[in-house]
Structures are given as structure tokens and as C-alpha cells.
């Protein structure tokens, strides 16, 4: 039960700032060894944003190389390392932990009106493991790199001169970090919901994190097993994947995608959860079809385990298997479509404010819409034969992973920024950069669909001149997007120092995290708050004087 020490909130230090989780303790140790989910969330946030910067820089270097045919900046081997590390850093260090471990860690306990997650020490351990895993990646990067593609396909990876084992060890450790976050969230949601918050009164972000956590716990061990088997094959030659030793390279692909396909739902489900919070808030409308959105998260998590073979339609897996995987893959498209329609229906007759988080959410609907629709081409057996391993696939997964997850991450970051930092960012710059990211993104990735369906293979250092125009546009788009994202970083950092003080509830949200002050006190709530419908905006009234919202109890 979340009973807390009274009085924290009213203690005022000399400068007049109420005591909160940021100023209650000082010194580096108070951060590195903190058990406070909020501080762990903030450390995760800084770490994953640094990873995003690193991965993004590598992406832009790659795009610069590809602006024209022939060699521009790097030789083949450097290019191969860049795309491999871009993928590995973005997947393992940014997207997978991004929303759950950074934003989820901060928000989940507060949304439950709780003091912390169920296992605070495990939570800290999970972050420390993330750091160790990241160090292994940096070690691999600085001692010879990695040139296998993030997919580590054998037998190529068995004979690569680069640091396969080091990077594999990093991914192995990061896997445990991810599992521990998942275990923690499952336990927290099961045991720490406040009185009155039944499963179907939970905010949808929690449903999304719950579904994600299930995948993290069930799928990630398979990544660990795969990496162990790969290491054993390299070090001991056990003959499981290496065809010269009687192993089967296609078996590796099954192992790899058995984790890595569910992993894309680890990436997208929390993103959908954020959108389900932001759209009702900024439309001041109850979410439409709560139950179906909640069920669809769980459905995606479960179906997501049964579709890995769609990465292997031309790999020489059996045609019967390919047919079954194609059919099952379409089962994931329906819950995704339902969510999009339900979000749109939520906006119907609402009162829609285009604040930055909402601009990102609308951007998400459009980009994820394109990502989802183009996924249909890849789920279909015969069209996948044409499109597999071309830029069409590259464009598709960037529309879902970047247009989906990164954009939703930015929506969530801007939505909870006032809560996390106690500061408001500049709305004008926020919206401008959101729009610039949208255009830059489309300029980068839309041309990739066109060249892909015309046959341009992925992971190419050089290409025939007929594809130049598409590559050139794509490169320009990536620079625009890079600048816009840099802009986001700058105005957010500026807000930390010069931003207006954030009220407890700047957006008029109805979930519990907006009931405590911004930033929250260390214990989140002095007493367990009472729970009501997380999407009922009637009691949330605007205070024009203070430019914020208050919950008016017992309205009506």
C-alpha cells in the first residue's frame, strides 16, 4: 500500500521550490544508486537519447555516402560497419528500451498512484545492465566494429573478422536488462493497482506496457539462447549453424526472428499506448472503444509470436511454412487497423488542441498508417518475393519504427516533459520542429519505397545510376530531419533553464500522474489518490488565471 510520509510536499527550501524527486538528494551517488523509479527513468532517458544521437549520426553519415553513386566518403567496409552499428544501436540501445524503460519507468508507478515499481532494486539493476551492455557495444565499436548487419546472419557472422562476440555479449546483457524491466512491470501492474482501478479502468498506456512486458519476458530469452549458440558455434564449432560442420544456417534465421519479430511489437506497442493517452487528452474526449484497444494490444502481443517466418519467404524455408506465416501475419494487421480507426473516432466532435504532443500524435497516425499499409505488401507471399531485402523493406520498417515508435516517443516526451522536469518548453519551436520532422521523415523514406519496388537492394554501398534521384532526395530528407531533431534537443535543454514553471496538470489530462506536482515529490503522492475513469474529462476544469487544469471533485 502506498502510504507516504506526510509533509514532503509542503516543505519549502530557501529558493521557494517545493521538494521534489530532483532536488531532494544531491550528488552523483544519489543518482547512480537511486532506487527511485523517476530518477532511473531520467537516467534511462538521457542514455537512450545519447544512443539515438549516435545512431542518428551514423544514419546521416550513411545517407551522405549514398547521396550519389560511387564512393563519396567511405569505402565498402566502413559503410558496412555503419549500417550494422546504426541498426544495432537503434534497436538494442534506443527503440527497445526507449519507451518502456525511460518514459514507462517514470510514468507507470505514478499512473498507478504508487510510490514505485514492485522491485525497485531490480529496476536499478536493469539500468546498470543496460549501461554494461552499451559499454560492450562501444567496446565492439572501438576495437574493430561489426560488419554483419544487426541480424548477424550465419555463416557470414561466423567468419567475420569484426567483433561479433563482443557485440553479441552486449546484446545478451541488454536482453536481460529488457527482461528485468518486463518482469518488474508485470509484477507492478498485477499487484500495485490502487483500490478501484480494475483492469479495465487502467489507462491504455499501462495496457500497452503490460502487453509489451509479456513479450519482453517471453521472447527475449530466445535472443539469449540464440546468441549463446552463435558464440558456441564460433568458439567451439559445435556444428549447429555452420553448413561446413553439418549445421543449418536457416535454423539461425528461425531462432533470430523468433525473438526479433516479437521485438518489433516491443517497439511499437508502447508507442500505441502513448498515442492512446495523448489523443483523448488533447481532444478532451473519452477514448473510443477502450476495451477493443486494450484487447488489441494483447492480441498483437500474442499473434506477434506466430509470424516470424514472414522474414524468410525467400530463404528456402518450406513453402507450406511460408504460407502459414503469411496468413498469420495478416492477423496482426487487424488489431493495428482497429487502433487507428478508434483514435480517429476519439477525435470526433472533440475540442482538438494542436499542442506539440498532439502534432506528433497526428503525425504518428499518418506515418504509422503508411507503415502499416506497406506492411501488407510484405505480408503477401508473392509481392514479398519482389520486395524482400530491397529499400521497400527499409522504408516500411522505418515508417513503423521511426515514423511510429520514435514519433510516439517524441509525443510522449513532450507530453510528460513538464511532469518530468517541472518546466514548459517553447510551444512554437515544439510545433515547428514536429512539422519539420514530419516532412523530413517523408522526404527521407518515401523515395525508398519507390526505388525498392523497382529493385534497389538494401545494404548496398554503391548503386546503379538509375536510382540516384531517389537516394539524393532521401539524403536531403535525412539532413532536414537531423536538423529538426537537433532543434528539439536544443529547445528542450533551453527549457530546463529558462522554461516557465510547469503546473501539475498543463494539458487537462485525467490520469493519476497529473494529480501530483510537477516535478513529482520523491514519494509521488502523500496519500493514495482516488481513482476514476482515466478518460473522463468532465471534472478536469481549466483555470484561466494559472493556465492549467484542476480536478474539481464531485462535479455534476
Amino acid at each position: 500500500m502506498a502510504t507516504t510520509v506526510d509533509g514532503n510536499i509542503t516543505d519549502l527550501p530557501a529558493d521557494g521550490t517545493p521538494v521534489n524527486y530532483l532536488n531532494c538528494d544531491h550528488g552523483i551517488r544519489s543518482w547512480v544508486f537511486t532506487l527511485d523509479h523517476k530518477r532511473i527513468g531520467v537516467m534511462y532517458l538521457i542514455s537512450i537519447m545519447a544512443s539515438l544521437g549516435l545512431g542518428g549520426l551514423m544514419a546521416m553519415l550513411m545517407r551522405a555516402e549514398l547521396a550519389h553513386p560511387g564512393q563519396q566518403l567511405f569505402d565498402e567496409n566502413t559503410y558496412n560497419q555503419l549500417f550494422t552499428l546504426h541498426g544495432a544501436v537503434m534497436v538494442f540501445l534506443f527503440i527497445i528500451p526507449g519507451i518502456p524503460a525511460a518514459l514507462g519507468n517514470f510514468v507507470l508507478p505514478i499512473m498507478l498512484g504508487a510510490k514505485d515499481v514492485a522491485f525497485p532494486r531490480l529496476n536499478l539493476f536493469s539500468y546498470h545492465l543496460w549501461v554494461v551492455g552499451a559499454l560492450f557495444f562501444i567496446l565492439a565499436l572501438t576495437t574493430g566494429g561489426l560488419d554483419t548487419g544487426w541480424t548477424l546472419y550465419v555463416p557470414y557472422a561466423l567468419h567475420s573478422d569484426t567483433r561479433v562476440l563482443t557485440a553479441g555479449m552486449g546484446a545478451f546483457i541488454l536482453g536481460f536488462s529488457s527482461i528485468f524491466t518486463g518482469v518488474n512491470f508485470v509484477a507492478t501492474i498485477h499487484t500495485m493497482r490502487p483500490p478501484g482501478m480494475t483492469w479495465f479502468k487502467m489507462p491504455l498506456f499501462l495496457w500497452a506496457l503490460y502487453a509489451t512486458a509479456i513479450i519482453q519476458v517471453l521472447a527475449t530469452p530466445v535472443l539469449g539462447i540464440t546468441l549463446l549458440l552463435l558464440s558456441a558455434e564460433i568458439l567451439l564449432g559445435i556444428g549447429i549453424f555452420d553448413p561446413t560442420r553439418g549445421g543449418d544456417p536457416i535454423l539461425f534465421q528461425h531462432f533470430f526472428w523468433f525473438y526479433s519479430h516479437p521485438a518489433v511489437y516491443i517497439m511499437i506497442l508502447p508507442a500505441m499506448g502513448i498515442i492512446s493517452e495523448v489523443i483523448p487528452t488533447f481532444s478532451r474526449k473519452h477514448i473510443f472503444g477502450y476495451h477493443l484497444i486494450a484487447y488489441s494490444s494483447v492480441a498483437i502481443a500474442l499473434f506477434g509470436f506466430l509470424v516470424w517466418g514472414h522474414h524468410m519467404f525467400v530463404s528456402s524455408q518450406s513453402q507450406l511454412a511460408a504460407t502459414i506465416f503469411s496468413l498469420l501475419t495478416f492477423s496482426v494487421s487487424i488489431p493495428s487497423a482497429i487502433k487507428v480507426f478508434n483514435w480517429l473516432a476519439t477525435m470526433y466532435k472533440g475540442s482538438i488542441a494542436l499542442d506539440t504532443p498532439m502534432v506528433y500524435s497526428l503525425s504518428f497516425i499518418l506515418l504509422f498508417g503508411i507503415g502499416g499499409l506497406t506492411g501488407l505488401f510484405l505480408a503477401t507471399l508473392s509481392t514479398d518475393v519482389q520486395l524482400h531485402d530491397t529499400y521497400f523493406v527499409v522504408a516500411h520498417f522505418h515508417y513503423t519504427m521511426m515514423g511510429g515508435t520514435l514519433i510516439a516517443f517524441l509525443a510522449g516526451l513532450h507530453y510528460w516533459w513538464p511532469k518530468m522536469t517541472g518546466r514548459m518548453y517553447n510551444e512554437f519551436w515544439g510545433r515547428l520542429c514536429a512539422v519539420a520532422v514530419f516532412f523530413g521523415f517523408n522526404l527521407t523514406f518515401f523515395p525508398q519505397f519507390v526505388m525498392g519496388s523497382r529493385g534497389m537492394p538494401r545494404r548496398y554501398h554503391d548503386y546503379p545510376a538509375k536510382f540516384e534521384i531517389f537516394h539524393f532526395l532521401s539524403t536531403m530528407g535525412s539532413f532536414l530531419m537531423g536538423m529538426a531533431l537537433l532543434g528539439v534537443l536544443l529547445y528542450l535543454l533551453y527549457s530546463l533553464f529558462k522554461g516557465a514553471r510547469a503546473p501539475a496538470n498543463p494539458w487537462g489530462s485525467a490520469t493519476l500522474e497529473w494529480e501530483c506536482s510537477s516535478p513529482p515529490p520523491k514519494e509521488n503522492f502523500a496519500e493514495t489518490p482516488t481513482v476514476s475513469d482515466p478518460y473522463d474529462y468532465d471534472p478536469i476544469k481549466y483555470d484561466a488565471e494559472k493556465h492549467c487544469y484542476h480536478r474539481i471533485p464531485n462535479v455534476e
Partner: protein
Amino acid sequence: MVDFSVNTFSSLAGIPLADLSGGGSFWLPPPESVSAWAVDNVFYYIMYLSYFFFALIFAVLVLFVVRYRRRPGVEPVKTATHSLTLEAVWSLIPLGLVIVMFYMGFVGYVELRSPPEQAYEILVSARKWSWQFTYPDGTMSTDLHVPVDEPVRLVMSSEDVIHSLSIPAFRVKMDVVPGRYTRTWFQAKQTGKYDLYCTEYCGTGHSDMLASVVVHEPGDFDTWLAEAGDILGSSATPVEAGEKLFRIHGCGSCHSTDGTPRVGPSLKGIIGETHRFEDGSSAKVDETYIRQSVLEPGAKVRQGFKNQMPTYKGRLSDAEITALIQYLKSLSK
């Protein structure tokens, strides 16, 4: 700078978005094989559905954002928070549409994966980073030569890592996997030259692992085959024959002839050099040394290199090895 000529832009404008009559479209290259329908029909079905649903989502989104924008004094209107009918509609309609999609894709996949019984069989060997095509009479080439209007079956294997053979104009793609044979097939509709790519990442030279598919008139194909099949006979000198063999067997993927070391040492002017080996010994390069290196690549491994070379025992005749040696001799320092 980028070529912004009319030609480049004609690929962006003026081409129909879809053309089921047999031409190409903005999205797909002109279909040049008889099975291209297997991809194209369902591609355009999904494409039009995607246009429709994206337009629908975009229109509703813009309409709502404009119509229901926040205005002072205007409160949101309470509407139903769920509707079984609506939600059933937008679950079941997409469900029906994707089942059709699955079925069309399945039918197409069966077509793409089922070569006719009487197909002309060509063996494909992939290795870092070149293709080798072997015809029924034993002739080999690095570009794929086929007769028009005749089904061609490719039986493929890899000597090292996974590669993938892709011919976009024919809607053909199949991985080439070490340790097993994979198959694909096509039947070209008209003569011409088409691009062939490796589409499974295979390392340094992945983006150079390109070849052409040359589609001949039936008579021309036989002429080509006869000429290409008799390298020693159709070449004026052993050096010329050796140069052709060097190319066909993909030696140049790993060994340059200009002095730059690649995966293997450059072969420029090596005759007469003294080489040091990984085991510390050394030897002078002569004809016997080269012959041994071709047949037993692991016997003498130059210092600073790893032995990655497959053996050519049984793949090159003595006369061919002799021609290769003559060619290497011609590469002066």
C-alpha cells in the same frame, strides 16, 4: 551533382501509377517474364487499397482537426464511447480485404515457385562476390544468358555465405544458401538485357555482386553457347583464354590485377617474386606454385592473408590452368 535531366525526371512523372496492360508503372519495372502477373496483380490490388485507406485516414484526420479545433467557449460534445457496430465494421471489412490479399499472394507464390517440368536447367554458383552460371553442356559464364520464350530453371548453391539472386524485371528472388540447393525459375518474354542483383548482404563486395541477364533469340542463344563453351578454341591466344577464365571463375573478386590487395593478394606481376608464407617458409613464384595454389589453396598462404579460397580441383582442366598461368604472366609489373 545529381543528374536532373529530363530522363531522370521522366521516371518521376508521366508514367502511369499502374498499368495492368503489360507496361511498367511508377512503382514496378516493366514485367518481362510470363509469371510477373503473380506479383503485379496483387501488388496493384494492395496499392489501390492503400491509396484508398490512406486518403480516408488523412481526410478524416484533417476534417476533424479543422472542424473540431479548440475554440473558446465551445465544449466537446459527448458521443458514444464505443460502438459494437462501428468497431465490427472496421474490423471485418479489413479482415475480408486481407483474406483476398493472402489468397492472391498465395496463388502467385505457387506460380513463382513451380517451374514447368520441361524447363532449361542452369546451375548457379554464388560466392563472394560473383556469380557463375553453368549450362547443360558445361559452358560457364558470369552473366546469365537465356533463350527467350523458354522456361529456365535455376538450381542454385553457394560456396561460402548466403547470397540471394534477384532479377526485378522478372519478379524473381531466391536466397542461395550454402549446404543446400535452392530453385527458382522464369520465362523471359522478350530479348534484352536486365539487371541481376545479390540481395542478401554478403560483405565487402555485396554491392558489386551484380550481373546481367542477357535474353537471346533461340538461334542466337545456341551460337553464344557454342562460342562461350569453347574458351580455349574460341580464343586467339592462351593469354586471351586465360583472361576469360579469370573473369568467368570470378578470380577478380578477391585478386586484383592492378596491385591493390583485396581479400587475397594482387596477382599483378607476381611471377618471379619471392613470397613469405604464414608458416614462415618462403618460395619463388613459378608455374608449379600457381598450379598448386589453384588446386590446393591452403598449401601456401601468403603472410598477411587468410585462406578463404575454394579449391578449383576438378573445375579447371590442365589446359585451362595453363592458360590462366599464361594470363598471369602477361600481367607485367
